[in-house]
């Protein structure tokens, strides 16, 4: 077989019945499968936790920490901010974590992780450190500690599980809550129901602005991409940041079975851009595969129900669409097929 037909064949085999979209694939070698496909995955966050049915955060955390454990040969410590992830895994005395794990406060995970990393260095240990928390613990109260950790380029991977609100305390707004979303503190009342437009912050971009070695966004809807990013991050020294979109059935008002679907649609409409940046520059973005209007994503969630009252779309649907369109342009989210 000459090279061109071999290449042609590989091109074809790439499709492999289901491409690489599924978790595993019986037709490829174990090495080509995801960490999650392995019967030997560490299950860093094991069963018996008290997360809601279909919790995207529980899923995202297992995806990320299992990949990090594989990448570090299980030599890993996690520091957790207060939030659902801490509360549903570790109501003393039980815990679901299968690795050394530390909890201090809501706002100081980045600083504690900095200290743990420094301690490893002092003790001459190779143990790596991950800090993790929710969007509230990251973008709001923990932001100062996080920015400091970036600025000092401490050897910590910080993972933010972004469910777009303070879910653990009853679904309040955070600075990562999207415009128009209803939360307990942005009720669907009055002339502008739900969260306001024009406020909040997108921490991944702020992290990029710190010029740290590695920043990425990811989603529970694309496991391969998520794992690749975590593994890549663990191969880098210094401050790193990954933010994972993790739908929350309770806070978003969605059926428990739609968790991955919602994460997928958030990417496919352009609302949640998935990209990578190194040393202050965006290097790659994940292309939209089957573009959808943002409406298809919003309408599945009760937190946006007020946008579709009486069978008419609220004009703010168009404003959200404009945000998606801007993301698509800014991050180059369309591939050759979609452009």
């Amino acid at each position: 077989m000459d090279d061109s037909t071999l290449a042609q064949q590989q091109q074809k085999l790439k499709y492999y019945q289901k491409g690489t979209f599924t978790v595993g694939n019986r037709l490829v070698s174990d090495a080509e499968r995801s960490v999650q496909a392995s019967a030997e995955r560490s299950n860093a966050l094991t069963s018996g936790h008290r997360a809601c049915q279909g919790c995207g955060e529980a899923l995202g955390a297992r995806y990320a920490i299992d990949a990090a454990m594989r990448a570090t040969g299980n030599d890993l410590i996690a520091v957790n901010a207060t939030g659902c992830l801490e509360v549903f895994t570790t109501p003393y005395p039980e815990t679901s974590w299968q690795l050394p794990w530390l909890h201090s406060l809501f706002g100081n995970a980045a600083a504690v992780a900095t200290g743990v990393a420094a301690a490893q260095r002092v003790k001459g240990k190779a143990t790596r450190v991950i800090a993790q928390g929710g969007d509230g613990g990251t973008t709001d109260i923990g932001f100062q500690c996080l920015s400091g950790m970036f600025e000092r380029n401490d050897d910590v991977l910080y993972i933010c599980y972004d469910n777009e609100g303070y879910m653990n305390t009853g679904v309040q707004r955070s600075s990562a809550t999207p415009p128009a979303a209803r939360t307990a503190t942005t009720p669907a009342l009055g002339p502008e129901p739900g969260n306001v437009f024009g406020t909040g912050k997108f921490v991944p971009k702020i992290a990029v602005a710190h010029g740290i070695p590695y920043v990425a966004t990811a989603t529970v809807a694309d496991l391969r991409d998520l794992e690749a990013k975590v593994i890549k991050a663990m191969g880098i020294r210094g401050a790193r940041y990954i933010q994972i979109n993790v739908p929350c059935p309770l806070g978003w008002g969605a059926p428990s079975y739609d968790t991955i679907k919602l994460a997928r649609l958030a990417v496919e409409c352009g609302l949640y851009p998935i990209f990578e940046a190194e040393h202050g520059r965006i290097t790659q973005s994940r292309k939209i595969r089957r573009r959808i209007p943002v409406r298809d994503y919003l309408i599945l969630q009760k937190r946006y129900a007020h946008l579709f009252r009486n069978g008419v779309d609220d004009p703010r649907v168009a404003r959200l669409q404009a945000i998606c369109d801007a993301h698509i342009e800014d991050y180059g989210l369309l591939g050759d097929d979609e452009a």
Partner: protein
Amino acid sequence: MDHDFAITLDVGTSLANHTGAWRTFRPEYVHRLPPCNAACPAGEDIQGWLSFAEAGDYEAAWRALTKNNPLPAVMGRVCYHPCETACNRAQIDAAVGVNAVERFLGDMAIAKGWAFEPPAQKSGKKVLVVGAGPAGLSAAYHLAVLGHDVNIREAGPAPGGMMRFGIPKYRLPRDVLDAEVARIAALGVRIDYNSKVSDLQATIKEGGFDAAFLAVGAHIAKRAYIPAGEATKILDAVQVLASMEGAEQPLLGRRVVVYGGGNTALDVARTAKRLGAEEAIIVYRRTREKMPAHDFELEEALEEGVMMKWLSTIKHVDAGAITVEKMKLDETGFPQPTGEFETLEADSVVLALGQDVDLSLLDGVPGLEFADGLVKVGPDMMTGATGIFAGGDMAPSERTVTVAVGHGKKAARHIDAFLRGAAYAPPPKHELAGFEHLNAWYYGEAPQTLRPTLEIARRSSTFEEVVQGLDESNALYEARRCLSCGNCFECDNCYGVCPDNAVIKLGAGQGFRFNYDFCKGCGVCEAECPCGAIAMAPEEI
């Protein structure tokens, strides 16, 4: 350990916390019926044999296929593949080329000399099969595999029925047919040629048969009354095609008119072209949309230069010419005469108007019932006469090779039960794996591999096979396009996506199990299973 106030568990793992108690719905692994399987007249487990082919285990694929159909190389050439029409993949890009992969497996089996497993035990029962067409061959194969002693009596000089004396060589090379028949005969099936059964009851008695399966096909050409002058040449399509198997080829002349709109008409016209006719014109009284022939066959014929005269009936045949009347479809879609006439030059006219069944061998058999010149059979393929079963073209159904093979299989299973004094109860069918059960997101984009066709120049002068097969890499690729509708293909999605880590992976080929101690019933696994192999069932609370 003593616990503090409000603390119930020891320090450490949460595994003591059985969150499965939260569940109101439980996921269950299920099998659903793939639409291809549901549509296959021979009842093949297409998804099942494709799954072996996907892994490159072609022999296992062929063995799984031939559990239901002993003629894959023939099927892969002549079957009209209703499986592909039903295939879910058509809703993503294009149907899986099931038929092409089937042919690939059939051809590989012939090349490698794979043989059927002989039965472990003989039943000692004797079954007569009348006719060595697809229905008879299929029944004989299944009966032989079930351990019965089978004797086929065939009126003609060679096996295959319409597969040999109807379907032209350029669609089904005879060495392919011969190889697949030989493999059935190698199971110990005795085929007597030139042995027309003219008195069924006498034959059963003489041979000491315990049961009989009739599959004599439909070979008597239907005639239409057409006023004809002297020295005109009017022939029957089935006779023309059958004579292609003899030493002398039929003389059709330079300009051949074929009358009819079915596949047989196309086969005759294409054969005439190959025999050297300058013109082969098909006269048909309706339109292309109403034509019973398949569109791909018409396309192939048109490419070869066959011409069509739509909305026309033959009024008169003279030496060297025919008169046709133009027709018009009425509101009900029925053709009505217009009174407009036209003359076409023609050296011969071939009638392809369908065939009737020769039922003379059944004279005097008590209990038989007939309808429209066909033998009536029950759901078990038994005729009104106890122990006498029938199928294929002689029984009411669609007339295709695949239906005939399916009849043969079904009859064999009921005959087997009959011989044991039992009744055969087919296993209950699974719920259909319709497209709505799939999560199409997970399938990669992959268009269908088209089978190469012989260049037109060679086709119209030779009887070489028109449609070529796939090579190994193409066949593998095509097999891997299958979505595995309704049946787990071990994608690990359920195992991966469960937020509660409540799916247990049992290992390659072993599938998965739910750990109901921890499954909260969120349904993410069901939603993200690409192929619909998980169902949510309400818990009894």
